[in-house]
């Protein structure tokens, strides 16, 4: 998928409007990205892309760009 699709995927995951999600959007600006959201993201990366980051990697993600970086690193984004 491309970056636009990745942003839409993140918006859908955290149940926010797509226009509210940009690479520089911070974690604290996404209400659903709480401790449960971390696990939800972890599960989604695992189930949909076969990506299984460590818990430390998950906790260190502080912005949408960090999620994009994980997707990029694993070749999920074109």
């Amino acid at each position, binding site marked *: 998928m491309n970056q636009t699709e990745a942003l839409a995927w993140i918006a859908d995951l955290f149940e926010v409007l797509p226009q509210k999600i940009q690479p520089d959007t911070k974690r604290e600006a996404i209400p659903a990205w709480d401790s449960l959201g971390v696990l939800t993201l972890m*599960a989604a990366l695992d*189930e949909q892309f076969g990506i299984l980051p460590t*818990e430390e990697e998950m906790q260190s993600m502080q912005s949408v760009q960090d999620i994009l970086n994980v997707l990029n690193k694993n070749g999920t984004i074109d």
Partner: protein
Amino acid sequence: MRFILVDRILELVPGKAIRAEKLVAADEDYFSDHFPGFPVVPGVLQIEMMAQAAGKCLDAEDPARGKAMLARIVSASFRGWVKPGSTCRIFAEVKSSRPKFATVEACIEVEGSRVSDAELFFTFIPLQQFAPGYRDEVLESFLSGRP
């Protein structure tokens, strides 16, 4: 009111799948309110039946991980009424099971017809959080081979 919504386990593959049963008594208190003249089992209780059954399947896989707790209802649909006196057959299949979370697809059938289904997300709570000596009698009964 007790909150044990699985009477017995019929089949269990730890961490993979479970088939369980709940007989809904005809005189459950909540039927007088839900609804007068049209008693049906609330959807939230059907979700809880599925969650309790799925939780036992996960707990049987790796007790040291902690007790499986419902953290998120990803989706749920209610397709038919569950009337007083119904026997609910509860099925759950684990889609992924990791140290910190698990996802499950579950459904309930009554007399061979699907009445509800759900996708559920679980996290795990350390056993130390629970009362000393807390045990899951339904799961233990099945694992020990008792009826």
